[in-house]
């Protein structure tokens, strides 16, 4: 109090002696601005001091004094700015960082005024603080606006620096802060109201004040600004709330300034703003509170995206059934149009929501879902809430549709021009959305499906394929798959080349390993289903368009045939079957596909009884038909595969050269075999029959080598497998030929391929010279090739499949010639066997008997032997071994004289096949001598047959 009586530095006389007469003199001096006794004008500092004295003595004059002081502050600011601009910015440093000017007389007076006012605030806060706060803030606003064009400071920070370096404005700021601090415990509404009003009036220039004060009193400013805003919003009436969707901004002027202030504070005090907003929301719901709270918050959020972003996520979390019911209670009595506008506002807000958009969506859908029969624990939702939410979702979808489709058309290609934050945030959630849609929950999936469509259009060009991919990958069953086709139907109009990009995306995803095996199988299966369902009448359907797109990716898809998972491989086969034939494919790609298909075929065979077998077969057939060379390759691969390694077991055989590894290699196969892997990708490598190979009957001291174990498969299975294999082989043969011969026969080219494959496989050493050895040498020379011949015999013995294959070759007429090596080796070894055989009956060595019969029959079929000679095998079971040898010898003789050359065959155009005319080749009689001799010798038993073998 003592300080008040005599403020230091004021130089005024002590107050007590000041009589009323003196006071009226002072008043006169203040009003006229001149010394009452001398009549000379007062200097501004003196005038101001006079005003301060009046302030202390004459309460009625306080407004006038404050007005005068306002002028004083204005002058000071003006002078300050002039001083600043006069000093050239010679040092290139920031011109705002000037050394503070020397304290002028004006500055001193300002300090005096500050001291006095602060003392007043301290002594009587309730009376002075509201008055001075609004005075200071208004003056700050005026000054900020008035000099906004003169200081050249840019940005909030520069402004702050500039104004805080000015004595007058800093003083005012200090006064305001003190007022706020003095009232902060009781009721700072008056101060904050003044701040808001001024902020409305001088908005952009005044921001620095708000920022500074907000930074000093964040808690108070946030809550008070909000409550003042709410009060103002409510005061402007329900009319504003009704028009909240439209131009409410003008009617609620403080709202803009609330938004601005909170925007300033959001960066540093976001958490407390969020807390405050949520608190307000929940308090506003309590009964008895003003019902403007919720519309106010909505409006606020609409005007300030950052605020919305801060609050949205947590708000959704807090919307429990009880809160929702409260909301419903609060809003249900409102008139219809008001509700409509609120809903429209909500829709706009949701469209703006970015953070937590997916969560918001889930919440809306959950709430809008019709109640299930099973009641959930907890508070039940009011039906009205559900209906409202239902409506909200519908409108939201409508609004999204509008905003998606109203974008400039170019944007579909150029990327989004008008951003819809809600959709933007959902872009990354397509997979989850698809998965939820596929659950086919009532109503919900319809909304989600629609949303997927919108999202796809919005996120063009990547969104749509992605959505389709996810749907295709996870759909199970026709119902769910229909969602994908429906989505395509929706989008086909607006997005070009959707199937193409979908197919590409699927393939990319597969190759990136994004899918687990079961999903992969599902995807392939679904693709196959879609493609297979193509409707001829609808060229625009997904299936019809997807098929050609997928064909382009055939090489990649074919690799999936090799997928470790059987399901996936089978699904791949199914898909590839369903696809149309590829138009143009590089041979290498085709070959790789073929190899994969063949491998898959054998795997399918091995899996015995799978439905996959027929797809595998169809696939092979389809691929073989692509080009003639593809057909040949397929045949070759099939034969090679069938005779090789483990596959041989399928047909009741043992692998060639597998004796070495037979002990462990084939029986307990390791999980991953390098050899096996190699075989998938490269042609067979067989080192078994080199010159260095040694065959032996066992290791000395260990006794004879154990005979190979009985075949793993039963006879029936072997037959079935053989049948299946031959079926495929024959079908491939047929399609590989441009003009296949009538049914029982097969094309010569195909047969030739099979023949060479056989030779390659059984006797690789001979294959190199195969062409040259078509001619048969004298029988004696066979001794030079005895090792090779034994090898051939062993192969035939090990692999029962070889004889049917020979038959196949024989049916493609001249082709058996190319198997001469095999025939010769087999014949030579058999002859040697019979020669050495000491049994009385041929039936004592059944396999040799059977082989001899099959060999001769085969050669007859292949037209290598003339009719009578080709039928001698019928006698074999009833003859003695040496007699068989004699007959075989005469066969050899015939072949030596009439070498089995393709030139001996001629094409018969009318029958479409090659035939050999034995009549032109001379009489075969001399080769029948041995036959007749044998017949004679056994005439008692074979007399009945003599007629049959008469030439």
């Amino acid at each position, binding site marked *: *109090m003592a300080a008040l009586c005599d403020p230091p530095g004021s130089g005024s006389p002590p107050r007590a002696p000041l009589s009323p007469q003196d006071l009226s003199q002072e008043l006169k001096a203040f009003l006229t601005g001149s010394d009452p006794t001398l009549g000379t004008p007062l200097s501004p500092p003196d005038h101001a001091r006079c005003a301060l004295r009046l302030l202390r003595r004459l309460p009625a004059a306080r407004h006038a004094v404050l007005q005068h002081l306002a002028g004083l502050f204005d002058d000071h600011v003006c002078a300050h700015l002039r001083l600043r601009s006069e000093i050239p910015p010679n040092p290139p440093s920031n011109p705002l960082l000037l050394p503070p000017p020397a304290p002028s007389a004006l500055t001193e007076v300002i300090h005096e005024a500050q001291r006095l006012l602060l003392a007043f605030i301290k002594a009587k806060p*309730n009376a002075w603080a509201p008055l001075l706060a609004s005075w200071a803030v208004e003056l700050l606003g005026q000054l900020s606006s008035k000099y906004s064009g003169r200081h050249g400071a840019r940005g909030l920070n520069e402004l702050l620096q500039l104004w805080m370096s000015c004595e007058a404005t800093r003083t005012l700021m200090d006064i305001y802060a003190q007022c706020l601090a003095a009232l902060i415990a009781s009721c700072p509404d008056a101060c904050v109201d003044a701040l808001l009003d001024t902020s409305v009036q001088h908005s952009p220039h005044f921001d620095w004040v708000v920022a500074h004060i907000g930074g000093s009193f964040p808690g108070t400013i946030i809550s008070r600004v909000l409550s003042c805003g709410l009060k103002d919003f409510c005061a402007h009436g329900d009319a504003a709330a009704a028009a909240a969707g439209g131009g409410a901004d003008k009617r609620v002027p403080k709202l803009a300034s609330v938004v601005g202030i909170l925007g300033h504070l959001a960066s540093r005090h976001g958490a407390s703003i969020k807390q405050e907003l949520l608190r307000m929301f929940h308090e506003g719901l309590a009964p008895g509170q003003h019902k403007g709270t919720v519309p106010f918050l909505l409006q606020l959020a609409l005007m300030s995206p950052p605020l919305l972003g801060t609050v949205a996520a947590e708000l959704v979390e807090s919307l429990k059934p009880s809160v929702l019911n409260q909301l419903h209670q609060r809003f249900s009595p409102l008139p219809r149009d008001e509700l409509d506008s609120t809903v429209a506002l909500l829709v706009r807000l949701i469209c703006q929501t970015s953070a937590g958009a997916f969560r918001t969506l889930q919440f809306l859908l959950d709430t809008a879902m019709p109640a299930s029969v099973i009641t959930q624990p907890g508070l039940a939702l009011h039906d009205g809430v559900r209906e409202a939410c239902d409506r909200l979702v519908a409108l939201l979808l409508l609004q999204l549709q509008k905003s998606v489709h109203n974008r400039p058309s170019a944007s579909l290609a150029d990327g989004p021009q008008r951003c819809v934050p809600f959709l933007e945030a959902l872009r990354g959630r397509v997979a989850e959305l698809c998965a939820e849609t596929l659950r086919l929950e009532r109503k919900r999936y319809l909304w989600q499906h629609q949303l997927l469509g919108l999202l796809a259009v919005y996120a063009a060009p990547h969104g749509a394929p992605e959505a389709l991919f996810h749907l295709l990958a996870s759909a199970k069953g026709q119902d769910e798959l229909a969602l994908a086709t429906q989505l395509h139907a929706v989008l086909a109009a607006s997005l070009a080349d959707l199937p193409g990009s979908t197919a590409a995306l699927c393939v990319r995803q597969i190759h990136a390993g994004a899918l687990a095996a079961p999903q992969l199988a599902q995807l392939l299966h679904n693709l196959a289903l879609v493609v297979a369902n193509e409707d001829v009448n609808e060229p625009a359907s997904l299936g019809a368009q997807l098929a050609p797109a997928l064909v382009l990716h055939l090489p990649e898809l074919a690799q999936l045939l090799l997928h470790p998972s059987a399901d996936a491989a089978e699904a791949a086969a199914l898909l590839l079957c369903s696809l149309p034939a590829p138009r143009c494919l590089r041979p290498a790609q085709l070959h790789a596909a073929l190899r994969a298909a063949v491998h898959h075929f054998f795997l399918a065979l091995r899996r015995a009884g799978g439905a996959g077998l027929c797809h595998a077969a169809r696939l092979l057939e389809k691929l073989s038909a692509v080009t003639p060379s593809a057909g040949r390759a397929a045949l070759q691969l099939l034969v090679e595969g069938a005779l090789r390694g483990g596959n041989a077991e399928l047909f009741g055989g043992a692998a060639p050269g597998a004796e070495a590894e037979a002990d462990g290699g084939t029986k307990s196969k390791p999980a991953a075999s390098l050899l096996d892997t190699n075989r998938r990708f490269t042609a067979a490598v067989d080192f078994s029959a080199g010159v260095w190979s040694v065959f032996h009957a066992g290791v000395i001291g260990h006794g004879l080598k154990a005979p190979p174990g009985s075949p793993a498969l039963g006879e029936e299975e072997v037959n079935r497998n053989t049948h299946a294999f031959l079926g495929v082989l024959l079908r491939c043969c047929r399609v590989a030929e441009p003009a296949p011969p009538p049914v029982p026969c097969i094309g010569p080219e195909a047969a030739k391929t099979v023949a060479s494959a056989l030779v390659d496989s059984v006797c690789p050493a001979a294959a190199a010279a195969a062409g040259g050895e078509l001619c048969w040498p004298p029988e004696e020379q066979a001794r030079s090739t005895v090792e090779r011949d034994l090898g051939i015999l062993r192969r035939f013995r090990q692999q029962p499949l070889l004889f049917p294959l020979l038959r196949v070759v024989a049916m493609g007429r001249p082709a058996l010639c190319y198997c001469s090596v095999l025939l010769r080796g087999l014949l030579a070894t058999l002859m040697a066997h019979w020669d050495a055989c000491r049994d009385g009956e041929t039936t004592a060595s059944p396999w040799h008997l059977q082989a001899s019969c099959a060999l001769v029959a085969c050669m007859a079929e292949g037209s290598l032997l003339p009719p009578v000679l080709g039928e001698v095998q019928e006698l074999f079971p009833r003859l003695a071994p040496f007699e068989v040898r004699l007959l075989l010898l005469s066969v050899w003789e015939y072949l030596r004289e009439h070498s089995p050359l393709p030139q001996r065959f001629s094409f018969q155009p009318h029958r479409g096949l090659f035939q050999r005319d034995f009549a032109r080749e001379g009489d075969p009689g001399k080769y029948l001598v041995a036959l007749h001799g044998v017949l004679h010798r056994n005439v008692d038993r074979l007399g009945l047959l003599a007629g049959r073998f008469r030439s």
Partner: protein
Amino acid sequence: MSDIRHSLLRRDALSAAKEVLYHLDIYFSSQLQSAPLPLVDKGPAELLEEFLFQVPKERGAPPKRLNSLQELQLLEIMCNYFQEQTKDSVRQIIFSSLFSPQGNKADDNRMALLGKLVSMAVAVCRVPVLECAAFWLQRTPAVFCVRLAQALVDDYCNLVPGSIQTLKQIFSASPRFCCQFITAVTALYDLSSDDLIPPSDLLELIVSWIFEDPRLILITFLNTPIAANLPIGFLELTPLTGLIRWCVKAPLAYKRRKKASLSNGHPTSKIAKDSTEGDDGDCHQLYSKLHLSVLQVLMMLQGHLTEKNLYGRLGLIPFDHVVPLVEEINRLSDELNPLNASKEIELALDRLAQALQVAMASGALLCTRDDLRTVCSRLPHNNLLQLVISGPVQQPAHSALPPGFYPHIHTPPLGYPAHAAHPALPAHPALPAHPVQTFIPGMTFPYRPIR
């Protein structure tokens, strides 16, 4: 008048206001010369409202507002005018034509300007203005008087620290104004809520004034021709009722405020608490002093009433005002009862009893003991009060007093009246089943009224 208006319209706000004052002066001076009681017709009043109080006459016309500086200039001009106007009658009529409430929308501006004018007059000690204001306070409905009092209290007690001294000085300049001011202030601060407890500065000021010269209270009463029926809705002739209310209710009201601040849980620091307690202690002293002065004035009153031949005819302390006072005490003591406020209740009731007794004895309060008994029956027990309402048994033999001095209070205590004695009294017949104030008829007390 309309040509004057047109010329005024062309001027700026300040000079127009000055011009209006000038014209008004001329108008009333000439009127007064022709008739002793001039009629204030509508013309000048409208001019005043338009140009002095800035109420736009036409809708949509932009109001010319004086800014604060111009307003201050205007105030100074007015002050000087009243100072220099020598004729009392002209001054009075101009003041009342300026500031009498008209019941229209100019009243707010009118009252604001009046507040500032009087506040300024206090500061620069313009006696004529204060006299006019005192007169105005007498003839204006109490609601407006209270507003003026509020403005002055705000200016001198709540705003500038230490400025109360300025207000104190006018005691010597215009006691009449001081008296009216006290009446208005007691009407304003009736202690009915915590906000309506007088500021301690104000209390000290008033106590110091009255203590210096208790007759200050009676100045208006003594200098005014009295009509027997006091008009309703105006300030009372004396602040006596209000001051009694202050003294009686103060202990309870302060206790209640303390309780409220405690229960609000304001973390008052120890120092602040001590200071308020010290403050309250000072205030209790002041109320004691005030009570003494009031009793002294009441004692004096008897003579003045007799002088004016109003004894027994004019109740300066209307019984109508005592009833609500008792009820409030009753309510407050109920409210505070659980709080060990017995000391405060005792003090309040003691003061009430003393004031009632002395007021009745001096003829300022006109009522029977039966009335009093009915009114006070529900109050908590207090020995003194019981004595007062049961009345003296002995017939006093005061030869100095005229006969029939106590006629109205000498009804013998014959039990409870069957009906409510006062029509204003709420119907709560004191049932014998649970009387708080036990009354034993025929009991004798060695009691005489104080002199």
